């Protein structure tokens, strides 16, 4: 069965499509070599609240400038989406959106009787009403557990509405229970977008490069300028029209391979846009490779060499200076998969010893099928192994346990909620939301500066440590972090 099949309504879930796992305890090098010969996922006999696919699909659709989003489910399944309305508003200056419009976010508000008689009619009426209220250029319908289990025919309802309204109505299958890997929600959104919005290319435009990313700052504009190209950001701050013609770009790059794995491969395999054969540019070695891969894809290798030389002349002395200050420090990383690997690259480059990592899941091989995109393998090759490497499925109890034992000098996190436990244990903790912040040579300077500042200003965490409330039992903190993971003592 092909892994990308746009004729099917739903995306194939990540654990089946690319063999992603959510449980592992060991070290990074072992994980990299095991990935090559087939990984088996491990279950836990204790678990805490996760995220689910629906909010991931939501963030990739709500931030499309001229769309509207309907969550087809009980009102609770749209609860946290107001966060993306805030994000859209506050980050709009970073992307040159001068007049950010109110986000259009709806719930079909499924009731008990709908779970008995079905919610198809309600959904059809809702789509009509949302179209009338908003005049959106596309409507995205996100499915939820309840809608999925009662068996609503969301695809047909959306197709009929599309015909009636004359705008794309995109069904996105992102029920929380479908996948154990919540990033499947990104894939689900992209799958729907690729099926309904992206058109076959009319031409190939050498001056446009797709970037699959979140809502980070616009660093790529300056980076692409020497190559005579401009970034086409996907999907936050895009428009229905800019997405439609993303098929005409000369190449696709990713800010985070966990995020863009599927769409990058779809654009390449279905629409002929090559994905550059490189992991994102974190750390000097990887930034060199990335610019070279970009140059090669664009047929502009000389420009790539020129850019590399110019930037290195400017930034290497600054990186060296930081390295002198940071060498010998230890750090622990907790983050989603690829961005976690990126943070490990940054640490490696700055001479900080990675004493462990709790990474939410692991994709052994991205949808492109290219080993060059494997950021963890690059990290191990460039800077060496990472001990205490835990694929933790965002399980706080494992993180607390590991941090308490390892006690690094600093905790680097990405994803809300995870820095709290560093701080409670008196460990300076840093979360940088902008995924582009650490990229490139200049990113090392910026990130290194922030790490220094965090290490220096530790008074707050030291005070919090003295007063921190801890719900975890003494017994638990004495066990191994993987106690409840299959193969551990408690499983």
């Amino acid at each position, binding site marked *: 069965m092909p892994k990308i099949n746009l004729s099917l309504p739903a995306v194939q879930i990540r654990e089946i499509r690319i063999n992603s796992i959510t449980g592992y305890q060991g070290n990074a090098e072992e994980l990299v070599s095991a990935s090559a010969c087939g990984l088996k996922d491990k279950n836990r*006999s*204790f*678990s*805490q*609240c*996760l*995220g*689910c*696919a629906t*909010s991931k699909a939501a963030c990739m659709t709500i931030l499309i400038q001229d769309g509207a989003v309907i969550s087809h*489910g*009980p*009102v*609770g*399944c*749209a*609860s*946290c*989406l*107001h966060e993306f*309305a*805030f994000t859209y*508003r506050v980050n709009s200056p970073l992307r040159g959106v001068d007049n950010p419009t109110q986000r259009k*976010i*709806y*719930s079909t*508000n*499924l*009731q*008990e009787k*709908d*779970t008995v008689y079905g919610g198809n009619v*309600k959904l059809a*009426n*809702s789509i009509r*009403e*949302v179209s009338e*209220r908003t005049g959106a250029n596309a409507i995205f319908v996100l499915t*939820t*557990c*309840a809608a999925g*289990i009662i068996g609503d025919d969301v695809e047909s309802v959306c197709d009929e509405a599309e015909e009636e309204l004359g705008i794309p109505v995109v069904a996105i299958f992102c*029920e929380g*229970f*479908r*996948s*154990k890997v*919540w990033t499947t929600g990104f894939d689900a959104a992209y799958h729907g977008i690729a099926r309904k919005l992206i058109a076959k290319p009319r031409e190939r435009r050498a001056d446009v490069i797709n970037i699959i990313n979140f809502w980070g700052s616009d660093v790529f504009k300056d980076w692409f300028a020497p190559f005579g190209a401009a970034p086409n950001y996907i999907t936050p701050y895009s428009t229905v029209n800019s997405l439609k013609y993303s098929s005409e770009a000369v190449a696709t790059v990713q800010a985070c391979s966990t995020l863009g794995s599927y769409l990058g491969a779809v654009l390449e395999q279905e629409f002929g846009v090559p994905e550059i054969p490189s992991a994102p540019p974190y750390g000097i070695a990887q930034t060199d490779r990335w610019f070279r891969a970009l140059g090669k894809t664009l047929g502009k290798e000389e420009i790539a060499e020129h850019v590399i030389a110019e930037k290195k002349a400017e930034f290497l002395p600054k990186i060296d200076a930081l390295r002198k200050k940071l060498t010998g420090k230890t750090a622990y990383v907790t983050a989603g998969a690829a961005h976690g690997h990126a943070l490990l690259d940054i640490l490696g480059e700055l001479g900080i010893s990675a004493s462990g990592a709790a990474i939410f899941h692991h994709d052994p091989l991205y949808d492109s099928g290219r080993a060059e995109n494997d950021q963890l393998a690059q990290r191990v090759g460039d800077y060496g192994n990472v001990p205490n490497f835990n694929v933790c499925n*965002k399980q*706080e*109890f494992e993180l607390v346990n590991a941090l308490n034992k390892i006690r690094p000098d600093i905790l680097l996190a990405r994803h809300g*909620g995870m820095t*709290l436990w560093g701080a409670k244990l008196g460990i300076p903790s840093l979360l940088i939301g902008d995924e582009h912040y650490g990229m490139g040579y200049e990113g090392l300077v910026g990130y290194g500066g922030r790490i220094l500042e965090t290490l220096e200003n530790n008074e707050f965490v030291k005070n919090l440590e003295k007063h921190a*409330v801890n*719900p*975890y*039992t003494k017994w*638990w903190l004495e066990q191994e972090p993987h106690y*409840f993971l299959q193969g551990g003592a*408690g499983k």
Partner: protein
Amino acid sequence: MNQIGGIIEQGRYTCAIGALQSVVAIPKAVPILHSGPGCGDMIQGFFERSTGYAGGSTSPCTNFSEKEVVFGGIDRLRQIIRNTYKVLDTELQVVLTGCTAGIVGDDVDSLVQEFADEGKPIVSVETAGFKATNFESHSLVVNAIIDQYVSLFEDANEPKADKNTVNLLASLPYQDPFWKGNLFEYKRLLAGLGLKANVLFGPESGGVKEWQCIPRASFNILVSPWYGKPIADHLKQKYGQDYTWFPHIPIGANETEAFLNQALQFALTQGAEIDEAKAKAFIKHGTDAYYEEIDNLATFLLEFRYGLPNHTHILHDAGYVVALSKFLLHEVGIVPKEQFVTDGTPKKYQEAIRADLAGTSDKREIPLYFEPDAGKAQEIIRGVSHSGRGLIIGSGWDKELAREKDYDFLSAAVPTPYRLVMTTNYAGFTGGLRVIEDIYHQVLDTYR
């Protein structure tokens, strides 16, 4: 208008499982979710900064996958509960179900009974998202704890044994952003009358020990337009505790006096041992201190010559809409125009709320809409215009509307990423003063 169960734009409340926050609000209690993987995350994202002792990413959850949907999730839940006792140090466990468990029909009650039979302080409650809103399921959760946990301690806690103790049923934890401060203020005010109030939630409650003593209270006080009423009714039936019902939040002097006098008179009829003169002196002191501030402020309100808001639209739960309308009109001089109750008030309570608001003034009619679909509410506000400077009091969703209309804006409802609230109270004499501070802080901040 008024379509319960219709489409909702810009949700102002969440689904039944959102009442897990009522568990989080009980010191050292833990919610255990038998639900899909995203439910806890959604609730955390809705309320923000709401983790408490063991909520948020700390709460155990079965994280339903396809396997549990097909084969049922009881065995998984058993495993999670058993290991919760090993990992987390908690004094009360409340198992809440999500849509997945509700639809596949897992028999959670029987499983939880197994643990209760072992002597564990554990409770189960059905909170499938499609069954109720969190405004409604708060009562389901509290009543479940009363029936399955509090009832175990009845031998040591004879009903109505403590003449001067009351159970206070008021702010919904987290759904009311000022719940912590409000509960503390109610407790302080009632203590001034000579009553000891069990507030049940937050740091000013006595945790599970206080819950065990619920039957001992002589009577109960319900401060709410409608939510939480099933708890008062249940306690009346179960322990014979009568209750007095104050239908909106007492904000400012007029309503706080009314509330305290009502509580005082009811306490006397219930046989509480109260020094009435002392209690009345306490109320008078609150009023005097309040008007000392208003006296100082009046010059500003009357004379500030660069523009102050003269009318307001409020989008909030019924308790705040009515309370703030009364307060702003009579005690601040801001005229309430079209008002919007966004809490999904069931039909049967709507008339009484209309009457309560209508009693605000015999000179004017205040248009009132019950509209859980806040997108529609905003559309109505877009379509009206009143002379003078406007003020919108609502959730974070309304900030953009205020900007569109060039109105002042006060964030006072969930969800809101634009304001942090910790222990601020809007209830009481001091709560009224705080509302005034908040409004004019925003207004004065526009002058640069």
